[in-house]
């Protein structure tokens, strides 16, 4: 029974495919999984948009949307209908082909990342040996789409937004990769399935998730920071900073193309949350061994939605960074710490079992964090401001 609930989607897929001739079965199984992914994640996107609007409202002591349906739960439907019936305007001097391709490309690329994510036991679309590499290769292509959008719009705001986006995404791509390299070093595999298996063990009922080790915790935090920047989320939402750049690279998009950008952004966030969960939070494994009867796919989606809630929480809290702060933070703080974390992960691997490696690794990371935090803040002189005006 428990086994059936765990494998319900796998069994369902097998059952549906069994109606077809055996020559078609492998292709049909893949197609079915693709359709399932393309249906599930936009549905989660709708839920997270509602969560975001309601949650942000509550954080600012207001109700949030509450007019469409009971408690406003049909707001995403209304938003979708609005996006569909709005006029699609392409600027007169825009590069129409690229302008059209940019949102399509973004959505395609963002969905491709899901191909390698293990969403449950036996629930990986393509169990690639270099799944992690594939995910990063695909994830980096979103930058191209962003730049296509900004460049083809022939609008200075769009272009500025795209320039910022590219600078930011390239800067944060490095720490994002570096922080996950530690996981690869410990696991010894680039396969996401193997990474989950390595974490799916329990001691005294507690899981062996990487986030519960010093290097894993540091890696997780650094990964989360870099992922927030990669997905252009607040406080790193400079590329679309609405107070400065109208809407950044998608200023000139309206109607359904805009909705596609929106969808791409959220689905991308969920993808990278899924990757974070896979790398550091044990993927589809249960948080306690006695919770093993809950289906594995539930844990994966619960972790993804939890990560989305944290994204929303952070967005409701932090103001936007300045461009130079953003760059300084990436190159002078996050990157050195990820490099140090690689060394710490190596130490952890070769110091063997015991309490000593806990002490040494934690001490190194804490010391580095404190010292670098002090050093980074030393330059800030917070005092009365002086203003100079152009004459």
């Amino acid at each position: 029974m428990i086994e059936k609930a765990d494998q319900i989607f796998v069994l369902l897929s097998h059952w549906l495919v069994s109606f077809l001739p055996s020559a078609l079965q492998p292709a049909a199984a893949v197609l079915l999984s693709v359709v399932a992914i393309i249906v599930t994640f936009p549905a989660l996107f709708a839920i997270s948009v509602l969560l975001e609007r309601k949650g942000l409202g509550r954080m600012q002591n207001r109700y949030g949307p509450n007019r469409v349906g009971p408690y406003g739960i049909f707001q995403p439907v209304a938003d979708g209908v609005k996006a569909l019936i709005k006029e699609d305007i392409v600027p007169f001097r825009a590069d129409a082909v690229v302008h059209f391709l940019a949102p399509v490309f973004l959505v395609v690329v963002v969905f491709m990342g899901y191909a390698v994510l293990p969403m449950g036991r036996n629930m990986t679309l393509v169990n690639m040996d270099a799944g992690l590499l594939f995910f990063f290769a695909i994830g980096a292509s979103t930058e191209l789409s962003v730049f296509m959008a900004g460049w083809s719009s022939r609008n200075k705001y769009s272009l500025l937004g795209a320039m910022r986006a590219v600078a930011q995404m390239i800067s944060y791509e490095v720490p994002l990769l570096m922080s996950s390299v530690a996981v690869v070093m410990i696991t010894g595999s680039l396969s996401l399935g193997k990474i989950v298996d390595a974490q799916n063990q329990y001691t005294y009922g507690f899981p062996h998730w990487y986030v519960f080790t010093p290097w894993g915790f540091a890696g997780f935090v650094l990964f989360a920071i870099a992922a927030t920047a990669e997905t252009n989320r607040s406080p790193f939402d400079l590329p679309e900073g609405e107070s400065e750049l109208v809407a950044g690279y998608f200023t000139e998009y309206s109607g359904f193309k805009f909705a596609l950008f929106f969808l791409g952004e959220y689905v991308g966030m969920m993808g990278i949350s899924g990757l974070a969960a896979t790398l550091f939070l044990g993927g589809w494994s249960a948080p306690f061994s006695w919770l093993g009867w809950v289906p594995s796919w539930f844990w994966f989606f619960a972790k993804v939605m939890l990560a989305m809630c944290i994204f929303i929480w952070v967005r409701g809290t932090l103001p936007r960074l300045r461009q130079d702060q953003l760059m300084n933070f990436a190159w002078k703080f996050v990157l050195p710490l990820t490099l140090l974390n690689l060394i710490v992960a190596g130490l952890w691997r070769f110091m063997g079992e015991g309490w000593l490696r806990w002490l040494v690794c934690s001490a190194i990371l804490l010391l580095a964090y404190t010292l670098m935090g002090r050093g980074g803040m030393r330059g800030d002189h917070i005092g009365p401001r002086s203003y100079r005006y152009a004459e």
Partner: protein
Amino acid sequence: MLGEGILKGLGETARNFVGSYVSAERLTTVQYPEERAPEIEATRDFPFLVYDGTDGEAGLRCVACQICEKECPPKCIYIVKSTDKKPDAFGKPQIYPTRFDIDISVCMSCQICVEVCPFEAIKMDTEFELSTTDRFGGLLYDRKELSKSNEYYHKIHPTEAAEVDARLAEEKVKADAKAKAAAAAAAAKAAAVPAQAPAHITPKPPVTAVEGDKQG
């Protein structure tokens, strides 16, 4: 330590998030069409014309002196003066505006018309649900749409209306007294005229009469 402020901020938003569900005073939103915020007495948006009594046509305090039309900075008032006189709410014959239009799409709610009106005839309204599908005709208010009773004025601006009423009553008492004195003087003069017909008499009594007239 680095990151302390971020944690503090996250705590603050979490407190807001939970607090908005448990404490009503955090959630200050007034859900407008169903609920309404209490009206603020000092609020104002566009002018209206006050009338005394019950008949909005006859009771207008406005005597078409056109001061407001001249003083209006964006020139949104248009007045046509009548050629005849009609009795006002107190039965006194007065010149009246045959047309009194205010274009509220032009009006900037400066209240200057109210400041300059010597007859307390134009006041500021608080009605704000003025949306219309016709942005030209629908926002050009004529005399009929602008006329509102003194009771309405009392309802929206109680303090101010009470002051205005007291002032008007005081002036009325003064004017009545003056008119009475003038009438008495005129009567006395009329009685005296036959006796001193040839001599030219000081022109003082008529002047008083004129002053009394103006204030009334």
